[in-house]
């Protein structure tokens, strides 16, 4: 919910922003550019959550070594999100299980939610950016 009652009183509006990541890293640029959006949203003091669904869960798989494909390994950035007060990281249980992964395989602490719970959370947002 947006704090519209604060409009006109000089208090910044806070909206619920959700970034939904559904694509694997490196094959396309979306994961990297989504990460940049998250950092800026947090800099605007918005209520930001980051969601990993489908192949998006591979973005936070441990052990990424990109040297031999000639790309920068940006996965350490996910571990730094806490420094920017981005603490709402959610992963869909069904997506993890379909890929034989568990929370232990991920490089950052996340909340694992089933599709029903995650769907409910998606409904509560104001702005959803999908990458």
């Amino acid at each position: 919910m947006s704090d519209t009652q604060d409009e006109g009183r000089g208090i910044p509006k806070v909206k619920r922003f959700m970034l939904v990541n559904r694509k694997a890293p490196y094959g396309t640029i979306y994961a990297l550019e989504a990460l940049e959006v998250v950092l800026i949203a947090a800099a605007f003091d918005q209520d930001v959550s980051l969601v990993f669904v489908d192949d998006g869960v591979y973005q936070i798989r441990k052990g990424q070594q990109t040297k031999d494909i000639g790309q920068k390994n940006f996965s350490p950035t996910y571990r730094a999100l806490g420094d920017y007060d981005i603490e709402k990281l959610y992963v869909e249980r069904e997506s993890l299980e379909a890929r034989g992964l568990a929370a232990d395989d991920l490089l950052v602490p996340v909340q694992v939610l089933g599709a029903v719970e995650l769907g409910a959370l998606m409904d509560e947002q104001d702005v959803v950016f999908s990458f």
Partner: protein
Amino acid sequence: MKFGILVNEGPYQHQASDSAYQFAVAALAKGHEIYRVFFYNDGVNNANKLTEPPQDDRNVTRQWSTLAAQHDIDLVVCVAASLRRGIKAEILAPGFHISGLGQLIEAGIEADRVLVFGD
């Protein structure tokens, strides 16, 4: 109602920019406002005035420029995504300007709805 639009794909390769444009035209026709169109990822290529599609094809860049002129729409191209792809101020079509991702977040805050057009 105020709409924000995010375009994540370049012109011609993908329908995203066309769909976003058609949505914007329809929204304006219904009396809504387009608060901002933000071009990100390969979407920044929509701003390149050097593009020359064949004469019997639509000119995606020119369509956006014309719409922006007619309705005073803010067409913002992400600076970091632009630098990666060689989209510089000197090749921007009319109506487009380069700015930061903060403009996307601001559109999210100020617009009533944000729509994402991507791959």
